[in-house]
């Protein structure tokens, strides 16, 4: 994400230009929706979370420190909302309800659907902190450095935590028939 463009859009929103906020929504809706989807395992909940996140961001934009990254700020709001949603729901929706969020495209064959479902189930078995790391790095494709910035920890710590999280994920995937028996 381009930080300069984000800052310019934030400035316009603060000056009363709601269309600029629409541009911010367009830039971040995919990331936030996918983060919520993979963390919650339910597309409807993910949509609710994404909508609430953007409304809160719009209402509180005047409190945003423009010296920091907009993505870090909205990511924090998202994580809080995801946790709220989990607390409210308590139970996890069955996977057939959870996925898919959209109709499978031609490239999404049966094998891919099964694999995605298995990964999602395995993710839901992980602790929240482990799940967050795997989602950020492997599914949302954030670099170690970007994750380190988001979490305010050294890059080395991210690598070490990710190592453990992947090991745990592998165990859960094996139970679902992925990887060596």
């Amino acid at each position: 994400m381009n930080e300069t463009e984000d800052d310019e859009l934030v400035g316009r929103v603060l000056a009363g230009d709601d269309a600029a906020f629409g541009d911010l929504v367009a830039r971040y809706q995919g990331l936030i929706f996918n983060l919520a989807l993979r963390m919650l395992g339910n597309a409807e909940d993910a949509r609710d979370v994404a909508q609430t996140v953007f409304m809160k961001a719009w209402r509180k934009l005047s409190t945003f420190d423009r010296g920091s990254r907009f993505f870090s700020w909205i990511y924090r709001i998202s994580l809080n909302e995801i946790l709220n949603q989990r607390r409210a729901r308590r139970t996890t929706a069955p996977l057939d309800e959870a996925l898919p969020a959209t109709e499978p495209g031609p490239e999404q064959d049966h094998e891919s659907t099964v694999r995605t479902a298995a990964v999602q189930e395995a993710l839901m078995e992980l602790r929240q902190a482990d799940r967050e790391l795997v989602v950020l790095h492997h599914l949302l494709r954030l670099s170690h450095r970007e994750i380190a910035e988001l979490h305010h920890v050294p890059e080395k710590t991210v690598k070490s935590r990710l190592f453990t999280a992947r090991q745990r994920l592998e165990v859960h995937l094996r139970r679902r028939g992925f990887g060596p028996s």
Partner: protein
Amino acid sequence: MIDREHEQLLQLLAAGEASPAERARIEAWLEHSAEGRRRRAELEALMRTLAGVKPVEAPARLHGEVMSAIARERLDRRHAKERRPWAFALPVAAALLAVAIAIPWSRHALHGPQSPDVSGSLVGGVAPIAREEWRVEGASVTVRAYAAPGGARLVLELNASQPLELQLAPQEGGAAVRLTAAAAAGVQTVAGPRSLILRAAGEHRAEVAVSAPQGGPVRIDAELRTGLGRRQATLLLPARDR
């Protein structure tokens, strides 16, 4: 058994994240470790599985829903601002009205033939004994509670851009408390054994009678729901004057 250091390097290699130095080190080790080569294959399979999970498109309606909600909220704020110049006059007018009605009412309550029923009711005259405002994405409800013989009367102003559902239920311990909806155009009511549900969309006014024969404080749990969110709250009606 592969030690942690080599396992870590193997993960980095499989993920394509090893630095040139790390890569050289682990590849040199792999030349002499069949177990390491097998593990490398396993980890590469894991990474392929993860890489196969593609991002999902955000729902097409998400952007529009957010922007509509913002537009509605801006409009609400503007209306609130426009009403503000008159806001100072409202409490004064309400107080004058309360006095104008309360004086004849209190005379009637003290001296009239029906006074025992009324004097034993909840606190107050015309001024509300409780007032709450509940907001959720797409709807708001203002509730004013007034003292009434044998309990209270709730006046609800429902304002919903989304279909809303409001569930009211007396808390545990309020077994004798009963809620009854008065007819209200555009508001659907469903009475259950322990709760009352009101459903509406748009702007409506509804009334609910609260029958509380025991006279203690009454707590009513409220849950306001729309397709965009839900909110829980409690309405407290004070005990009757003793």
